[in-house]
C-alpha cells in the first residue's frame, strides 16, 4: 500500500463516522395540521393543556416566553422557532393572539435530540379555536 493511502483512509473513516451527526440536523419540508399549544403545560401534563380550557394559560405562558409548539393530531409536537420572516420566538405578539388555534402550516422541520423544531414558511389555514374543552375542564388554571 502506498504511504499516502493510509492517512487518506483514516480521514475517510473519520468523515464517515461524523456524517450521521451532520444528518441529525437535516431539514425536512413538511405540512402540519394541529393546535398551537404551550409546550410546558402540555409536556408536563400538570393541567389540561388543550383547546379553549387552556387558552388563558397558554396566553400567559406565551407572554412569559415559554416556547409555542404545534401539536399534530397524532400527538407529535413541533416547536415553532420562526413564522415566515419573523424570527422572534419569545413573546411574539402575533403568536400570542392565536394560542389554542387549529392551524395548518407548511415549514422546514429539523429534528435533534428528541425534539422536532419547525420553521414555518407559510400559515396555510387558521380555523381559530375549535376544540371547546372548557365545557368539560373549565378554565385553566384554577378555574378562573
Amino acid at each position, binding site marked *: 500500500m502506498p504511504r499516502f493511502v493510509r492517512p487518506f483512509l483514516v480521514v475517510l473513516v473519520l468523515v464517515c463516522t461524523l456524517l450521521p451527526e451532520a444528518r441529525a440536523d437535516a431539514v425536512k419540508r413538511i405540512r402540519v395540521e394541529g393546535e398551537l399549544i404551550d409546550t410546558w403545560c402540555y*409536556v408536563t401534563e400538570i393541567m389540561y393543556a388543550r383547546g379553549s380550557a387552556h387558552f*388563558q394559560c397558554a396566553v400567559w405562558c406565551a407572554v*412569559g416566553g415559554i416556547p409555542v409548539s404545534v401539536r399534530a393530531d397524532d400527538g407529535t409536537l413541533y416547536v415553532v422557532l420562526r413564522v415566515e420572516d419573523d424570527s422572534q420566538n419569545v413573546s411574539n405578539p402575533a403568536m400570542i393572539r392565536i394560542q389554542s388555534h387549529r392551524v395548518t402550516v407548511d415549514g422546514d422541520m429539523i429534528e435533534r435530540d428528541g425534539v422536532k423544531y419547525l420553521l414555518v414558511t407559510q400559515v396555510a389555514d387558521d380555523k381559530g379555536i375549535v376544540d371547546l374543552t372548557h365545557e368539560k375542564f373549565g378554565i385553566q388554571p384554577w378555574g378562573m
Partner: protein
Amino acid sequence: MGRFRSLAVAVVLCLSAASPSFAAQKWGIDGEMVAQFEAKVVDLLCELRGDCPKACGGGKRQLGLVRDDGTLLLAVKSNTLFAGATLDLLPYCGQRVEVDGLIISHPAMVIYMLQRLRKPGATEWIRATAFAEDWKQRNKTEDAKRWFRRDGMANDVIGTFGKVGRPDIVPPPPVQ
C-alpha cells in the same frame, strides 16, 4: 463482589442526592429527573440553522443548552410562574454555564426546566427568576406576584378574545 459494588453505587447516589449540590426541587411530574450540569448556552436558530444575530437575539430568541456530549436541550421553563428561561440564560450566550433543574422526558420530547444557574467555578447560585426581575423593571413596580394577571399584553389579548379565546362564548362562572 457484585453486591458490594451495587451497595457502593447506591451509597454514592444517596450521598449525592442529599448533598446541597443537588438542590433542584422536584415537581412530581412524570418523567422528571433532577439534573445539574455544565453546558454551553446557544440560540436555537443559530445552532440549528446558522441564523445568528448579536447577543443571541437580545431576549427575543429561544435558547438551549449544548451538553459536553453534544446533546442539545431545549430550555423551556424558569423558576418564575408561567415564564421561560431565555432571560436567565441570555447573559451566558455562547458561554458555559452550570445549571440546576429538571430534565423532563415525555414521549413527545425532552425539555429542561431551569431552577438556578451560575458561572462555572462560582460558589453562589443565581435563582432563575430573571423574567420576574425584568417584568418589575418594565412595569415600574416592586413585585411580580401574579404578574400574569397584571400584564398589559396578556390582559389585552384575554380582554379581546375572552378567557376561552372565543369572544362569542361566555363561560358560566365557576361553581364554588
